[in-house]
């Protein structure tokens, strides 16, 4: 008897938690199909008109393109800077590597706003006067700020991947005469690739959805999707933004699902890991 009550109470608590978690995205999805501007229940119908309207808004569409371009650039930079750094810190014995790691991971916990203010003030007051071409008002500060928040994601997952990858395999390869680059390419990389891919995915999505940084660097010509959505919501009260957001949510879910299938994002069983490490040569 006591157990049943316990279970019921527990189930209720868990449901409440999930309700709070999912209420907002669900209602956005629901509103996107609403035939009326006013939220109504039960719904009198479904319509795709708002999706068409959303895709006709120049600011929203530019925002999507801009966000995608900035996110792609920031992710590429994060990979270029972050993977070597993770290798150095995860497989090396540099003095002060704990401080370096903390520094490179710090943007994950620092308030984004402070990072943005820093880049903005620095760009306006120090970089611009010294530079022969226009820095502020262009995409450079925006991309730079985004790179600061993407590098930690790639680093963090890559470091975790390096930690769980068996370092003795690399030592064996080196012992057999392989150089560091060869060892990396043939031994380390296949083992760590899922972790790097996960980091890249997180980096892209975090950059795409970022608001706090982009807010300080957008202008008439330059805007990202979250900022465009924010501005639209300020002016209009219709489901257009809900439609655009639903498209983004759907795309995000699709990307996560695809990546989970191909890179075992959320964990691998030991058997799968062994198969993966041995590669397709066996």
């Amino acid at each position, binding site marked *: 008897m006591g157990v049943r009550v316990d279970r019921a109470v*527990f189930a209720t*608590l*868990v449901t*409440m*938690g*999930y309700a*709070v*978690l*999912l*209420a*907002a*995205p669900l209602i*956005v999805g629901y509103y996107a199909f609403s035939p009326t501007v006013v*939220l109504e*229940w039960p719904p009198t119908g479904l319509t795709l008109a708002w999706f068409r309207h959303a895709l006709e808004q120049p600011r929203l569409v530019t925002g999507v393109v801009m966000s995608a371009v900035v996110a792609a650039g920031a992710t590429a930079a994060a990979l*270029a*800077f*972050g993977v*070597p*750094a993770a290798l*150095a*810190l995860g497989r*090396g*014995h*540099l003095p002060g590597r704990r401080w*370096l790691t903390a*520094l490179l991971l*710090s943007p994950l*916990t*620092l*308030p*984004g*706003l*402070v*990072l943005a*203010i820093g*880049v*903005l*003030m*620095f760009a306006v*007051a120090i970089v611009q006067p010294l530079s022969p071409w226009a820095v502020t008002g262009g995409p450079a500060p925006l991309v730079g*700020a985004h*790179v*600061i928040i993407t*590098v930690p994601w790639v680093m963090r997952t890559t470091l975790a991947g390096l930690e769980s990858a068996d370092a003795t395999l690399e*030592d064996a390869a080196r012992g057999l005469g392989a150089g560091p680059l060869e060892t990396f390419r043939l031994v380390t990389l296949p083992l760590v690739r899922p972790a790097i891919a996960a980091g890249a995915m997180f980096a892209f999505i975090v950059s795409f*959805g970022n*608001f*706090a940084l982009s807010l300080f660097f957008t202008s008439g010509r330059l805007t990202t*999707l*979250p*900022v465009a*959505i924010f501005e639209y*919501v300020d002016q209009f009260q219709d489901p257009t933004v*809900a439609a655009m*957001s639903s498209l*983004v949510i759907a795309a*995000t*879910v699709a990307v*996560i699902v695809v990546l989970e299938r191909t890179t075992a994002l959320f964990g691998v069983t030991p058997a799968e890991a062994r198969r993966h490490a041995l590669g397709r040569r066996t």
Partner: protein
Amino acid sequence: MISNRLASLLVLPAALLFAVLLVAPLAFVLRVSLLPPGPGAPLEGAWTLAAYRALVDPYLLEILVRTVRIAGLTTVCTLVLGFPMALALRRSSGTWRLVQIGLIVTPLFVSVVVRAYGWVLLLGSQGPLVSIWARLGGGPATLLGTETAVVAGLTEGLLPFMVLSLAAVLAQQEPDLEEASRGLGASAFATFCRVTLPLALPGVAAGSLLVFMVAMGSYATPALVGGSRQRLMVTEIYTQTMTVFDWPLAAALSMLLLAAALVVALVATRVLRTAGGAS
């Protein structure tokens, strides 16, 4: 293992990048915060602590207190709501477990603006909550613009962080301990208080730290859901930077925000270390 020379070469680009994009800018912000404040203040001048008058000015002090209060409430709410979810996650397996992980993680990748907008719909004058309340007789015209609304929006946004932090620590616990406690006759609640919770304290501390710091620094949710009636540190910093152009004041407020976050981080790390040592 990699030689120190190779390691230095590999880490150098990232280190330089961060020096230029993070360390130097923050140092510059510190410098700006020590300039004389004022609307449109110039970026050079005498060294002064005048901009830190936030510690004395009642208007700014109220903003700081409100920010800390909202961040604290958010942390408590995520803890209360998140613990059952973490327990449920820990006890599940297979597909059901994957579904739960998916449900918890996916909202993290939906832009914060979109999630805050969902709360605008939920709590607005046309939203379901207001209509249900009105049908029961009475209730306010809108639930937006209140501190509760901001806490709700932030709680939803940060719940995944808390759940994942807790779940990670719970995963390391021996399930036999709980079973033993129940076997000896303790109720579920008593087991939770005496066995599960104390062992999970490192996760509680880690999760609370993360939630608190992100809540302190969030802009989109308070701006959309709280509006101009809920002024927080972050919105004030934005106004001072982009509208009033009192950059020394904005810089000082940023430094205060950063300091508050770091203090909380230090305290939480201390708690983590003693809690980890005790168990």
